[in-house]
């Protein structure tokens, strides 16, 4: 093929391309899908910093709670109240709890240390409660920790799932609240025994 022939054929191709329809109606109306997308309520953007602050708050709560519990337990009535025998109720067994908040966040070693400290203190305080109360509290603690374990398993599969992260954080808070309540119960027992 000569250059002239090639150029002529190129011209024919370009002319034919120019005749192709530029407007083609889609087989279905796309508007309902578009309308649904643009009128859907916007999901609130979760700021990374919010998560970081939430983690920091959780660590502070735990560290602060731990210190408070330590102060109350050690500085309070420890000398006036002999601890109940460990043989009066079932042995407490708690599952280890991870401090993971997805692929980008981690509560770190400080959290784990604070948590372990609280955990030890909780076991000590539980021993001071009456067997029935201790059993109830133990069930509640185990329920919460089972929930934490399951959420962590789910988070391992979906590390960036915001809902799971929030759920985990709120469950840690529940655990913290329970620990504080136990501390209150233990203190109450201490005061009654003092009388």
């Amino acid at each position: 093929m000569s250059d002239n022939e090639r150029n002529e054929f190129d011209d024919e191709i370009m002319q034919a391309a120019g005749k192709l329809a530029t407007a083609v109606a889609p087989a279905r109306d796309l508007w309902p899908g578009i309308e649904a997308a643009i009128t859907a309520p916007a999901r609130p953007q979760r700021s990374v910093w919010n998560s970081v602050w939430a983690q920091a708050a959780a660590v502070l709560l735990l560290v602060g709670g731990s210190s408070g519990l330590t102060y109350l337990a050690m500085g309070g009535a420890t000398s006036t109240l002999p601890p109940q025998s460990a043989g009066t109720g079932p042995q407490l067994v708690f599952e280890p709890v991870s401090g993971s908040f997805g692929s980008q966040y981690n509560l770190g070693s400080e959290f784990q240390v604070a948590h372990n400290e609280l955990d030890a203190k909780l076991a000590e305080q539980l021993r001071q409660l009456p067997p029935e109360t201790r059993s109830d509290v133990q069930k509640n603690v185990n329920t919460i920790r089972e929930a934490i374990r399951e959420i962590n398993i789910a988070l391992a599969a979906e590390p960036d799932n915001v809902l799971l992260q929030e759920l985990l954080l709120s469950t840690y808070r529940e655990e913290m609240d329970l620990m504080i309540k136990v501390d209150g119960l233990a203190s109450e027992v201490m005061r009654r025994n003092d009388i």
Partner: protein
Amino acid sequence: MATGSAFDEAPVVTDQAAIDESHWVERAKQADTAAFEKLYRRHVDKVYGLCLRMTGNAAEAEDCAQEAFIQAWTKLGKFRGDSSFATWIHRVAVNSVLGRMRKSRREQDRIRAVNEIAPARESIGDSGNLQDMEIAINELPSGARHVFVLHAVYGYSHDETGNMLGIAVGTSKAQLHRAKRLLSQQLKVANGEI
């Protein structure tokens, strides 16, 4: 060949229509979905047509067109009117197509599918039968196809084509040359010359 976009040159948009469109754009910027629907109704066929020619797949083209309008809604605040709304929504649609194709491995499947289902060809001849051309364009490699569709079919300049596809003007010209060579070969085969 082409020096401006087919939309900017298109005679279908009258002065009154342009005024209406400008009004709809302003209202849509204020989150008026009814105004945005009017823009959609006016432009959907050309946006879908572009998506269809770039992807070569009707379902994929529907998704791309839909995504383009959703993207346009969210980015409408950035539309300053430097170009026509039609050109702007085309750019959004091209980005939508390119984004989806980068993510998708269906391109290879598409090429195979086209080869499998392509009907027996008829000669283009002088009758104006463009079916062969349609099929031949579909069989082009994506880079050459995108340039050919934007430049030869939709009338964008090489500057505009390069800008929309994120490639250099020289690359756009080279891809067009490649597209023409490949089309030439395919159409000769179709015409029984080879």
